[in-house]
């Protein structure tokens, strides 16, 4: 199942909603790396709240996506890693290395806003529209 990607101001928000096949993860990678250019996005949030398993493949792919997004000039943050999933990841020795994480979508947005020094994403959008 394809992961829906929402454009919110200068950010892209991808919400993983079901158990993903490996091919879905790779599809998400390709879509994000492309869309970050198409929409000139500054930040990407990947919401993994619904993911009940983070195995070696999914964590490696998420790490790869974050690195590719950074190479495209944007910043990615992973939000919503569940307590049990965090426990299993540490047991297994899975590392996201330098990829930023935040508790939930709200924290993820505020993390990106701080990075971008933009007061509020929605506001900048409105301003743009009013000057048109």
């Amino acid at each position, binding site marked *: 199942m394809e992961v829906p990607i929402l454009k919110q101001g200068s950010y892209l928000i991808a919400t993983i909603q079901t158990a993903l096949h490996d091919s879905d993860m790779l599809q998400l990678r390709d879509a994000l790396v492309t869309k970050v250019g198409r929409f000139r996005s500054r930040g990407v949030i990947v919401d993994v709240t619904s993911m009940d*398993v983070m195995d*070696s493949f999914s964590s490696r792919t998420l790490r790869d996506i974050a690195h590719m997004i950074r190479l495209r000039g944007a910043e990615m943050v992973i939000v919503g890693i569940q307590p*049990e999933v965090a*426990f299993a990841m540490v047991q*297994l*020795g899975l590392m996201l290395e330098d990829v930023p994480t935040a508790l939930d979508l709200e924290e993820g947005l505020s993390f990106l806003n701080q990075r971008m020094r933009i007061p509020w994403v929605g506001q900048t959008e409105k301003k743009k529209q009013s000057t048109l």
Partner: protein
Amino acid sequence: MGGADRKEEAEHPLKSTVPISSDENIVAARQNGRALALQLGFSSTDLVLITTAISELARNILLYAKRGEILLEIVSDNGRKGIIVVARDSGPGIANVDRALQPGFSTSGNLGLGLPGVRKLMDDVRILSRVGEGTTVTATKWKR
């Protein structure tokens, strides 16, 4: 009583076999394992540990043997209950099982986390392997 048991068994299967030959099967194996473990009343943390182990074992099959199967079974031993995950393939086999169990060891360039990772997630992991004949990994998690 035997009749009632059989009825219960029919409604809640105690075992399940999932053939593994593509990445979609990994999700199926994981979901079947979660359903069985949930039935036993494992904690939510253990559920995630078990499903992650199933995922890694299924991934190993795809990676090294291309195809095989995952057998999931509820077991009881002296009143304690647990789930057994058997990952079986007829792949190339493991030349040095002791080495394959060492942390950080991987012949695939660290694509998977290998067997040491699964060992940390489960209570007991046994490996039977013959070069050229295949590998059977048996991983057990007991309910605490």
